[in-house]
């Protein structure tokens, strides 16, 4: 059954909280494998739904689910090596919360009922907060406090948004079950005023969680303070889940004939996020924070692409997949660097190519990928979004978009090249083990493969996800 996708990691997570760390590691990896297996089965439609008012394998949901599952598998393998080398205190809390985190994110991906979706997103906040606080330093405490407080306000606003959407159903006096699938069918009868208000609140609420500027302030702190496997999961999976919530309401708006309203908002928030990220990345002394700002930029790219629609929508969905793969890979490589050099400051790290060649390869390749250069998928997706914007006549917006992309690349390039080549970089405290090097490479490899060859099944699902919104790849 479909619900197993979140029940299984939930039970495993509770179990791992009780088990000692070493055995918990095993539970983590085994659950990750089973979850991927179940996820693939869900893709082939082999899993019936029991509570079908609440859960439904929608095309965008399945996409997010598979990405989450794949990224989680790589991260769980990585954390085998990471926990051996780096001292993670409270390993059982780490294992348990990672699994519970996976469970709540799967629930977000499968939720079809606005309130179930909302509860699941709230739960992601609750179970990921201990991960950020894992290192128990003063900075970690600050990051966790900001994360919980700011995201709580966001979640509260999103609840209000969900309420307004329900209100628009009630005012129109339509008797349908409250689920996105059935609401989409009657979208044109919904009350437009409250639907608009609902969208604004959902966009701000879930946008907080997704890291859209100006609600992004928690993100760099949380991503830099969490242990690297958790940062990779936050960036590669959680942001997508929050995006999914916005995407579903945007679909509803589009079907209700209010697509231009929500698109304008998405374009605005998207460009603002890219700009803010571009400005803050310039003088960034901390490489993990730099990666976090890059995540904000990429979320901006996705929001922008979804707002433009058409060609760009295809690009945005593709971008989501590739960003997850490449960014989580980068966070894992950054974890190796942090582990080896013991500092998050870019200054303290140098000559990575000479000192840690095995980590250097995925780290620098990830930089090439995240900058939007071939052979990685972000190259294609960003190009699609640019074409879409030009085709749609958004010339000014396209210019800002390209400008911000260049700004971020310039800012990131300085740090990446400094870390990789400059300085002489003293001897590392630790060597990187094989288990810490394979997963980041695996994730990058997946991005390269998906760049040149997209399986028919995946292609079809992306098309299904975007066709509702009028997205296409045939200009």
């Amino acid at each position: 059954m479909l619900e197993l996708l979140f029940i299984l990691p939930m039970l495993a997570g509770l179990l791992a909280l009780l088990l000692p760390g070493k055995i918990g590691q095993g539970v983590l990896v085994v659950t990750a494998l089973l979850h991927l297996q179940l996820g693939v089965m869900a893709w082939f439609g082999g899993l019936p739904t029991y509570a079908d008012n609440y859960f439904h394998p929608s095309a965008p949901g399945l996409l997010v689910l598979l990405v989450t599952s794949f990224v989680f598998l790589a991260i769980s393998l990585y954390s085998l090596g990471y926990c051996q080398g780096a001292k993670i205190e409270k390993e059982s809390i780490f294992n348990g919360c990672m699994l519970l985190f996976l469970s709540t994110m799967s629930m977000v991906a499968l939720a079809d009922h606005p309130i179930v979706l909302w509860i699941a997103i709230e739960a992601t906040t609750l179970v990921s907060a201990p991960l950020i606080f894992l290192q128990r330093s003063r900075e970690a405490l600050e990051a966790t406090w900001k994360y919980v407080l700011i995201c709580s306000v966001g979640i509260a606003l999103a609840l209000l948004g969900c309420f307004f959407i329900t209100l628009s159903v009630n005012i129109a006096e339509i008797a349908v079950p409250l689920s996105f699938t059935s609401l989409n069918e009657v979208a044109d009868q919904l009350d437009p005023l409250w639907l608009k208000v609902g969208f604004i609140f959902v966009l701000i609420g879930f946008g907080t969680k997704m890291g859209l500027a100006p609600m992004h302030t928690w993100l760099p702190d949380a991503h830099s303070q969490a242990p690297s496997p958790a940062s990779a999961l936050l960036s590669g999976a959680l942001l997508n889940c929050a995006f999914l919530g916005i995407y579903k309401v945007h679909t509803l708006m589009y079907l209700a004939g209010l697509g231009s309203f929500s698109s304008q908002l998405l374009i605005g928030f998207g460009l603002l996020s890219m700009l803010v990220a571009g400005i803050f990345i310039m003088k960034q002394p901390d490489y993990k924070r730099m990666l976090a700002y890059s995540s904000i930029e990429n979320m901006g790219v996705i929001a922008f692409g979804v707002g433009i629609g058409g060609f760009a929508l295809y690009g945005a969905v593709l971008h989501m997949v590739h960003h997850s793969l490449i960014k989580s890979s980068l966070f894992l490589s950054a974890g190796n660097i942090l582990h080896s050099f013991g500092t998050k400051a870019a200054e303290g790290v140098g000559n990575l190519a000479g000192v840690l060649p095995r980590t250097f390869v995925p780290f620098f390749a990830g930089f090439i990928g995240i900058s939007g250069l071939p052979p990685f998928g972000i190259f294609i997706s960003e190009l699609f979004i640019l074409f879409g914007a030009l085709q749609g006549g958004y010339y000014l917006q396209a210019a800002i978009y390209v400008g911000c992309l260049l700004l971020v690349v310039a800012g990131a390039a300085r740090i990446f090249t400094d870390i990789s080549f400059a300085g002489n970089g003293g001897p590392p405290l630790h060597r990187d083990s094989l288990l810490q090097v394979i997963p980041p490479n695996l994730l990058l490899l997946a991005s390269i493969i998906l760049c040149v060859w997209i399986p028919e099944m995946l292609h079809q699902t992306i098309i299904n996800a975007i066709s509702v919104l009028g997205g296409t790849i045939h200009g």
Partner: protein
Amino acid sequence: MIHFAEIVLVLILLSILLSLASNRLLALVKIMALQGIAVSILPLLLEHYRTMGSGGLIFFQMMLLIKGVLIPGLLYFALKKISIHREIEPIIGYHASLFVGLLIILLAVSITDALGNAIPTGNALLLTTAITAFFAGLFLMMSRRKAITQVIGYLMLENGIYLIGTALTQHSHISYVVEFGVLLDLLVGVMVMGIILNNINHAFDDIDTDNLNRLRD
């Protein structure tokens, strides 16, 4: 009977203004307890909530217990544990805060007026109070330094959201959506537990969020 509801609403409005002007944290917690109780019994006094089933009744009791007893109790415990009494040096002073509170009420009235016919009749004051609580909560979160005051601000914001839901609901058969707001209390609980347990008092001399500014750009 609607008069009872209005009395409660005025009480809530007063509690909001009081909380903006109060510098004693203990008083603040007591005000929040009162506000929590008022907010949770309010729907019982409204006409369209008369016809609720036993499930609804249990829900309201639970709500009363959480908002009126549990959360304020936790806050009280946190105050005792970390032994701070006053909000010293708020970002925006108490008199100014009170003034902002009045402005927020004006804003809330104008929003309610602008919505006009879109809200159920007789709920205008309710919606005004709700929006006031919402914005005052946000304001309190932004204008105070202590972690615990920020949590109280969040609590007020949450009360506001619950009241907005109550104000706009016309029919009692509406699927329970705003009622899920109780889950937000879970987050409040976690935050307060964080203050009590999680070394906020170990890491800092007092829980002044000004100390939480090492991570910045």
